[in-house]
């Protein structure tokens, strides 16, 4: 019983991490029609920032670090969008290729700067003690992580549905031409959304640090998970990213625990089923 509960919690926390990763990917894809293959690298960059910052200044607070790393990654993403992606507006394939090139550059730069050994990110002191509930023991940090993901989901929902800028983004997603025609600065929205997506991924990388730790290849591990989540949930749908993240979190965690060698195959079964019967994904409106 303890096994199932602990693995269930692990699934939830992985699902939460995947949501932090894939919500930004999904937002960017929805508005910009751009498969941002740098997203895994943004996530890894966040983890490395946290790992190195906390190694140098051990008194630093993890939440402050997450905020700082999120902002830093958002700035890098914004620069990349402004300097490179805007030049390729009419060339969607070229855009994907430069995001891929960028991901190679970032992951290799991390390897140069911080070496090939994995760097742990310490769990905050006040969250190290396990929580006892109903006679079971839970790692507190993972519970908090799930809370963070849910809070991010709620914040994103409110941003998209209740604010003016959210309404403009939705208008841009639905009909870019019309949105431009009524005076919405769609190009600026692109930058904002790209920064936002990159920032969430970076902050998510920090929060995932205590569980995953920073290591070379983290980006290549995370990107396919994000792809599978958004393909499953429906590209461009926030709800789809949320549900998809937790489905994949459960499947991956239990798959690895029960059939460690086949985890990757089990991971892609739900994707096949969904693509076969509903190519636009569970909650997607249009197929990609």
């Amino acid at each position: 019983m303890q096994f199932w509960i602990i693995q269930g919690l692990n699934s939830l926390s992985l699902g939460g991490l995947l949501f932090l990763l894939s919500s930004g990917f999904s937002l960017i894809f929805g508005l910009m029609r751009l498969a941002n293959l740098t997203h895994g690298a943004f996530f890894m960059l966040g983890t490395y920032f946290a790992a190195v910052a906390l190694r140098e200044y051990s008194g630093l607070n993890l939440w402050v670090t997450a905020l700082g790393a999120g902002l830093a990654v958002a700035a890098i993403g914004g620069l990349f969008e402004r300097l490179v992606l805007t030049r390729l507006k009419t060339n969607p394939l070229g855009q994907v290729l430069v995001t891929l090139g960028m991901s190679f550059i970032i992951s290799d730069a991390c390897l140069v700067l911080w070496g090939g050994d994995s760097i742990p990110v310490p769990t905050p002191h006040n969250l190290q003690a396990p929580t006892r509930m109903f006679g079971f023991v839970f790692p507190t940090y993972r519970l908090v992580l799930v809370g963070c993901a849910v809070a991010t989901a709620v914040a994103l929902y409110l941003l998209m549905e209740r604010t003016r800028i959210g309404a403009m983004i939705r208008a841009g997603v639905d009909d870019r031409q019309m949105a431009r025609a009524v005076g919405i600065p769609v190009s600026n929205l692109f930058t904002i959304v790209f920064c936002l997506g990159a920032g969430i991924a970076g902050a998510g990388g920090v929060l995932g640090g205590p569980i995953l730790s920073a290591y070379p290849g983290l980006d290549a591990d995370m990107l396919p998970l994000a792809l599978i989540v958004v393909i499953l949930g429906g590209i461009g749908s926030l709800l789809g990213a949320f549900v998809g993240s937790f489905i994949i979190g459960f499947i991956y965690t239990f798959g690895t625990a029960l059939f460690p060698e086949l985890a990757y195959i089990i991971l892609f079964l739900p994707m096949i089923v969904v693509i076969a019967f509903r190519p636009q994904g569970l909650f997607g409106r249009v197929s990609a």
Partner: protein
Amino acid sequence: MKWIASALFAAPLLLLPLFAGDFYINLASQILIAAIFALSLNLLVGFGGMTSLGHASYLGVAAYISALLTGRYGLGHGPAAIISITGTVATAAFFGVIALRATGLGFLMITLALSQVLWGLAYRMSNVTNGDNGIAGLTRPMPFGISLDSAAAFYWFALIVASFSFLMMAIFVSSSFGSSLKGVRDQPRRMAALGFNPWMIRWITFIYAGFWGGISGLLYVYYNKYIHPTSLSTTSSAEALLGVIAGGSGTLGGPVVGATLVLMLKNYASAYIERWNMLLGLVFLFIVLVMPTGIVPGLGKLAARFRRGSR
């Protein structure tokens, strides 16, 4: 005139081992393998309009099956090659059914995800694939009892296979099926209205490209006598895609030129710096921003302008 030109082109290729050292012969063999691989990807990218980021799957599947069968189970090279190509074609047929539910970016993402699954399998199923250690100690086949262990012999073998592959892919592209493929790339709805089945045309092309990807995988594993999960990685797919795009997708010569450039760059750069991935990323940015249509069409345009100017 055309015959003289092709003879002038073919002679140095045929006679290369007579005047070049082993290093260059081996480099040339690698280029031939990379060229087959890039040409097969180009069927999808250039002629089919299907940008795949998972083409390394077919190279890797063929190489791994052949390595396992010959290395671990002691099967002969002939039956092993047939089984591994059959396995590759089956994989391509299956992946094609999934990936072709989408087009454009969705197709790209699904092919990437599928190939990452295979990469993960090669890494994690270490009792079968030997994981990160790869499978070493493999042998090269001996067609008609001729040993391919010398650099020159292997080069000639690769040259025969590559020429045949090039010919087969050229015939495929210029056939009426190839025309319908280009039609589906440019105007899928009109083609459907004309009674063609766009999905079936794409799927057949996907399988055919997987087949030649598998052939290059076999050559790859024969050449290296070793296989490692990195040959299934995104980097491997991306290198081939870079070759196709740098050379010029949708042309027959482009991928060969592009694959040659990427491989030379990789070989020479790695002699001076260790940072191949970073260089690869920078070259990606450079090519896409500066030369989006590729070298061969770019040179063609230049030549056309020159001819017009001289008249």
